[in-house]
C-alpha cells in the first residue's frame, strides 16, 4: 500500500510562473475518465484532488480562467497563461479540484477511485484495489465516514 502524504505539499506549472501550496491532503483523490477530462489533459484521465479552497494557497503567478460547460453545473479551469499548464478547476463553490501531478511530489496522492470509466480508453488496465465506477457514485454511501464528515463541515462553512 502506498503511504499517503500528510504534510503541506508544494506545486506549480511547467514554466515555474505559478507556484502554490496545498496545506493538507485532499478530501478525496480520483482519476476521472470522462471525455471532457480526456480532452483537457491530452491523456486517458485526469488525476484530481478535491480540497477546500481554504487549504490551498497561491504563492506566485497569475492564472487565466475559462468557464466550460463540463460537469453538472459547469466548471472553471485555471491555468498558467505562459505555459498552458492547468492547475485547478472549480466544479462547486468553496472547493478546488487540484491536478495532483502538478505537485512537486507527483506520487503523493494515488487515486481513491476511478470514475466515469464507461468512456475509459479501452487499452487501459484498471485491475487492482482502487474502486471503479462506470459513472459517478453516491457520496453518502461510497465515501468513508471521515471524508464525508470533512466534506459536510466544509459545505456548512461555505454556506456560512
Amino acid at each position, binding site marked *: 500500500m*502506498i503511504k499517503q502524504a500528510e504534510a503541506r505539499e508544494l506545486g506549480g*506549472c*511547467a*514554466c515555474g510562473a505559478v507556484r502554490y501550496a496545498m496545506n493538507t491532503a485532499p478530501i478525496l483523490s480520483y*482519476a476521472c475518465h470522462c*471525455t*471532457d477530462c*480526456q*480532452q*483537457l*489533459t*491530452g*491523456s*486517458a*484521465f*485526469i*488525476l*484530481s484532488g478535491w480540497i477546500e479552497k481554504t487549504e490551498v494557497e497561491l504563492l506566485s503567478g497569475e492564472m*487565466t480562467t*475559462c468557464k*466550460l460547460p*463540463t460537469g453538472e453545473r459547469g466548471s472553471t*479551469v485555471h*491555468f*498558467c*497563461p*505562459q*505555459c*498552458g*499548464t*492547468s492547475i485547478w478547476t472549480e466544479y462547486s463553490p468553496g472547493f478546488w479540484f487540484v*491536478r*495532483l*501531478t*502538478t505537485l512537486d511530489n*507527483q*506520487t503523493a496522492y*494515488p*487515486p481513491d477511485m476511478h470514475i466515469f470509466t464507461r*468512456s475509459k*480508453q*479501452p*487499452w*487501459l*488496465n*484498471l*485491475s*487492482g484495489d*482502487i474502486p471503479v465506477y462506470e459513472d459517478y457514485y453516491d457520496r453518502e454511501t461510497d465515501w468513508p465516514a471521515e471524508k464525508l464528515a470533512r466534506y459536510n463541515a466544509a459545505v456548512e462553512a461555505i454556506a456560512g
Partner: protein
Amino acid sequence: MTNSDSDNTAVEQSVEQSVEGGGCACGAVRYALTGTPITVHACHCTDCQRMSGSAFAMNAWIEKSRVELLSGALASRTLPAGKGTSTTHFCPQCGTSILTEYSSPKFWFVRATTLDNQQAFTPDIHIWTRSKQPWLHLPDGVPVFEAYYDREQVWPPDSLARYHAALV
C-alpha cells in the same frame, strides 16, 4: 478520364487520407489530422505528468504536413526538456494543450485525446516509465521503456520510412 476512373481515385484517396478532427475544450481551436500517426507514445516523464495533469501524456507523433489548423490561434511556450527543448502549443482561452514540438521542426506530437474520436489511437510504446505512477498497471504486449529507446530497433519499417522521408 472516365467516370469510373474518377470514382476509383476518390475512393483510394478517402482510404489513404483518413481525416480525424480534433480541438480544444472551449472550441476555439479546431484542427485535422490528414493521416495516421507514425507512432503513439504514452509518456510517463515528470514533465508530461505535470503538463497533462495525468499519469502520462498520449502523444501522436506525426509529420507537420499531415496536421492542419482549421480555426483559432495557439499560444506557445518553449521549455527545457531532457537534452533539448519542447514547445507546447495550447489554446490561450481554455489552456488545452494540443501540439508539442520536440527534437525536430518536421513533426508534431498531437495530444491524442483532443481528437473527437478519443479512442482513434492506442499507445504503441510507453516511455519514461521509471517515473510512472506506482499504482498504474501498464498493458501487456506493448513495449515499455524505463527511459527512451532506439527507434531503429523498435519501429516497424513503414514507420521508419515515413520518419526518414519527412526529414528530407
